[in-house]
């Protein structure tokens, strides 16, 4: 039983990271009906921003202090938000009225560009992410091993999810996002500047991806320019699993993918699936959803407009 709870905790903190990335896929899909395949690479850039900013921020705000952690997180989120907005402005906006396939292929191009530019600028070799928190196992939990970083991942994810929910439900821009996702023409008849709302959505999604990058790097402190590929794909699966375009669905999908992946690895002997197949798990899930419930767990039936 302890073993199972342990796996759940591990799975939850991995799933939280997928969830944060999945939100960006699903929000952009919600308003533009296309999959931004460069999104996983924004997550990678987020981790690198943390890597480069951490030393100087910690000099200013204290080594391994809470303040430093928050400033690093917010700075990486802000930079990636700007990156997302620039990508949309320079690449996707000129293609806005082109066939979806054109945009999709372009997104793959942007992804390859970021991965290769990352290798050029950051160097191709993995880098050790600096210790920005005092990571250790929390004492007094018996046989359970819960680390500070795991708690942090969950706490930050929950906080960001609450913030996002508030933005989407309560703010004017959030309402405009929902309106635009339902009917862009009607939205512009309200006086909504669709370009602004679309840019905002890219910024929001990219900021969440950056947060995921930092949280990942705190938990698994080795980063490299291709680190975004697999989590990006898994988060995409998570978004499809939850129902693409559906925000709570993306969060739920991320957590589920993280849990299933961790459980498959944890119980690989019992279920006779080698733990080296961990990355195949998400894709097996993708095939199953596409076969049996293409609209995803929380998706509405009228959303199949790829």
């Amino acid at each position, binding site marked *: 039983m302890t073993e199972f709870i342990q796996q759940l905790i591990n799975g939850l903190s991995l799933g939280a990271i997928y969830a944060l990335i999945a939100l960006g896929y699903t929000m952009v899909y919600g308003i533009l009906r296309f999959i931004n395949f460069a999104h996983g690479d924004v997550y990678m850039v987020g981790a690198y921003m943390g890597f480069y900013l951490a030393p100087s921020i910690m000099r200013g705000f204290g080594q391994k202090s809470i303040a430093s952690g928050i400033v690093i997180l917010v700075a990486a989120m802000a930079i990636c938000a700007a990156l997302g907005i620039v990508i949309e402005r320079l690449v996707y906006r000129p293609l806005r009225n082109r066939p979806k396939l054109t945009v999709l292929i372009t997104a793959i191009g942007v992804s390859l560009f970021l991965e290769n530019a990352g290798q050029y600028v950051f160097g191709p070799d993995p880098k050790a992410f600096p210790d920005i928190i005092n990571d250790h196992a929390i004492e007094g939990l018996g046989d359970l091993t819960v680390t500070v970083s795991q708690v942090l991942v969950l706490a930050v994810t929950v906080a960001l999810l609450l913030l996002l929910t508030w933005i989407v439900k309560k703010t004017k821009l959030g*309402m405009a996002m929902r309106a635009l*996702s*339902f009917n862009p023409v*009607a939205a*512009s*008849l*309200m*006086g909504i*500047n669709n370009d602004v709302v679309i840019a905002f959505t890219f910024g929001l999604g990219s900021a969440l991806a950056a947060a995921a990058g930092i949280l990942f790097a705190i938990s698994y402190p080795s980063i490299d320019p291709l680190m975004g590929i697999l989590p990006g794909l898994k988060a995409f699966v998570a978004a499809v699993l939850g129902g693409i375009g559906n925000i709570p669905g993306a969060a739920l999908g991320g957590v589920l993918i993280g849990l299933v992946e961790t459980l498959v690895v944890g119980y690989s002997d019992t279920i006779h699936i080698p733990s080296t197949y961990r990355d195949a798990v998400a894709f097996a899930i993708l095939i199953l959803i596409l076969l049996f419930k293409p609209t995803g767990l929380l998706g509405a039936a009228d959303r199949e407009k790829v």
Partner: protein
Amino acid sequence: MLEIKDLQVCYGSIMALQGVTITVPTGAIVTLIGANGAGKTTVLRAVSGILKATAGAILFNGEEITNHPPHRIVGMGVSQSPEGRMVFANLTVRENLLMGAYLRKDKRHFAADFDYLFNVFPRLKEREKQVAGTLSGGEQQMLAIGRALMSKPKCLMLDEPSLGIAPLLVKTIFSKIVEINKQLSLTVLLVEQNANLALEISSYGYVLETGRIILEAPSAELRKNEKVRGAYLGGA
């Protein structure tokens, strides 16, 4: 107030409007009638900036607004309740109305405007917290009109408010349009296939046929016109 001069709009190589001229004086209700496919919606979409005019000009209070982005046109005081209503089915009635007020900065006046709208359309008050997708067609039409009014327009354009709505409710909605026009001294451009009612509440009318205005006159005269009676008023 609103002047459409020699407007041309194309869909690809098809010219849907071939030089349309319409004038809507301040405070008036002017109607644009015509059969399905005549180009009525195209006129309103071009005025709102959703479709590009290939030639001609659109002036609002003397200022040229041709091919301005839609949000600028709303900002200047021209709003529209589009064909098919297009309410945001995923938003509540209240949120839909707030979207109508998107460009307004005077939040403290919203409460009074909600009161006014709920007074005109009590059904909207009852449904305030409901998701708009659950409303009946007539209620959605009221919401679409209310939403367009929330931008505090000087000129309101209505695209077939009678479309797909029970006849009794259509009568109510048309009387509300007159009421709003009087109370807010709002200029109205009403697009309709239901020529009968439209000519009853308007002061001036235009008849559009395959992208051209073929007839224009005070509404009372149009109602007596043989051609209009034959083609648009059910021949009675």
